[in-house]
């Protein structure tokens, strides 16, 4: 029997707190113990097969005897888990601490929410913008996307031009807080 433990965090569909786990693995069964915001529990699992280095599939049985199908795959540093038809996304807690995570709220960046093309930049460097003001128009998947400022501020830098292709998460604009000069 081997024991493993660590810390993870769910990021989708519900963003949760970091949870700690302990695994006791024997040949046919894996017992789980979870600590944190979820109740502790023990589940048996049978692995059907790991078909690649980065993904696999299995069946598990709860204490009530019910069988559930699951599958998983690493997508970058995210672990995508499919369970009974629903998707859950996790990150190892250690990984998450390395970067500052998604979104542009905390810093001054406004990021592309999905890949696509920039149609129009409606502000220039030095402009004062208000929260929810439309700053960039993008097109993606044949739809127009309206990108708004996440807070009040002054445009410090415009990082893209109309016509430019952008990837998801790429910086479109950099905002400086309103009280900052320059």
């Amino acid at each position, binding site marked *: 029997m081997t024991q493993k433990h660590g810390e993870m965090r769910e990021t989708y569909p519900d963003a949760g707190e970091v949870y700690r786990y302990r695994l006791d693995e024997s040949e046919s069964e894996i017992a789980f113990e979870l600590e944190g915001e979820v109740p502790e529990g023990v589940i048996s699992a049978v692995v059907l097969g790991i078909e690649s280095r980065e993904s696999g599939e299995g069946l598990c049985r709860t204490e009530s005897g019910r069988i559930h199908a699951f599958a998983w795959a690493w997508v970058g540093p995210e672990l995508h*888990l499919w*369970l009974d038809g629903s*998707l*859950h996304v996790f990150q190892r807690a250690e990984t998450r601490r390395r970067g500052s995570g998604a979104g542009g709220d905390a810093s001054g960046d406004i990021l592309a929410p999905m890949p696509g093309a920039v149609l129009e930049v409606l502000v220039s460097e030095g402009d004062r913008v208000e929260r929810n003001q439309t700053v960039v128009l993008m097109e*993606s998947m*044949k739809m127009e996307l309206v990108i708004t400022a996440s807070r009040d501020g002054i445009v410090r830098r415009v990082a893209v031009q109309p016509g430019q292709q952008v990837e998801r998460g790429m910086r479109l604009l950099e905002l400086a807080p309103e009280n900052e000069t320059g």
Partner: protein
Amino acid sequence: MKQSGLGHPESISKLMFSKVLIANRGEIAVRINQTLRAMGIAPVAVYSEADAGAPHVYTAEQSVALLGSVAEETYLNIPNLVQAARDCDADAVHPGYGFLSENPEFARACADAGITFIGPTPESMGALGDKLRSKEIALAAGVPVVPGSPECLPGDPVAAEFAERWGFPLLVKAAAGGGGRGMRLVNRRQDLENDMELASREAQAAFGDGRVFLERNIAQPRHVEVQVLADAFGHTIHLGERECSVQRRHQKIIEETPSPALTPELRQRMGDAAIAVAREAGYVNAGTVEFLLDSRSGEFYFLEMNARLQVEHPVTEAVLGLDMVEWQVRIANGEPLSLQQDDVQPRGHAIECRIYAEDPYRDFVPSTGTLVRWRPPSGPGLRLDSGVAQGQEVSIYYDPMLAKLVAWGPTRDASLRRMEVALSQFLALGVVTNIPLLRAVMGHSQFQRGEYDTGFLEWNPAVTRPATSDESRAMARALAAWASHQTVAPSAPAAAGDNVVRANPWQSAGEQRLP
């Protein structure tokens, strides 16, 4: 005289096409390939650089590469598509839906090259594609229409005049549009100019035509459409209705037939109206007449006629046991439609769910990535029309619809239950999909009672929020922990290179910000 079955036309008078080029991609091109092959016709695929190796290419018998990846250079490029059809000696072209399917210039260019276009004539297509002319056709056929303004560009005073007369809310729509693109609900006068600008820009990007028009908004309507089939000899029948009221962003995601909203009397009136519109337009081939239905008053209004095969045609096929594409091909080949209206007797109930690569919990934002795992369900009464395969890249270039899942059952209840089970077994990993939302709709009591309209998702915001039980959340967390030790995450961006950076730009964007 009764026919023995709907799926087997008896008269085979003409020499059938031997080769047909499909000017499309994705699930619809795959689906057309299937029928053509079954008819002994060789399907020819065209593909963009982004689609090399896609299922619609390897299910065809022959393929022609189109240079480029964006739609304008490839699936919307009339000269190149006609040249491809010529080069491979195709007798006919099937346009599928979307792209050039309702473009009269394409139909004309095919005809000029001596290639049969599988669809209506360029003339009736042109008339129906023009929203205002199509309304005139409906009125001439004695079918009521929703009041609308003339087509205009943003800033035109006719828009303000129309708004003055009918008040708010009203709809702004793309003149050349369809599929909800360029469509916006305007609630207040002060938003009119801005919303028209946005709609016009979206229309320009999607259709190359920035003209828009305003339309009176019917509150809480149902979207019910009637399928028609017409041959070149003036024989026109309808194939019953499809209820398409579950929509997001004015685009359908769930369709069913029969509609839970129709009485036999109303069904007959709508069917007759659809036939009248098709006749008035001189329509030949398969087409769909869309109506807005006020289910409380039973009044219906002509919306538009789609001069092409519809995304949701499989539900009609499921209850009638016929192949719509086969009829399209035969009619285009000049065969008479041997079906009579009395032959159309639907059996049971069918429902379709569109599987999209999009996040139902974040405003349906499209999701891209590699389909690491893709295992659709199978079982009694199920049909899957899919345009993707495991390992395929879901790119930014095209519509995010991955597949259509159809469930048939002897009753509506039975087909809904089959759909619910099938969705729960639909394994897709690598992109975010709308499957959990579709399941939530199947399980919703109002939907189960058939009491819904086009505002269903807005009235029921709970459906667009995650609903995970504590038990399944705990199980997911435990399994994720375990799985994270069985396999390894791709190594860090710096070591693994560009690939991984693209797989998670959030992470790299976050790191760039760090001092």
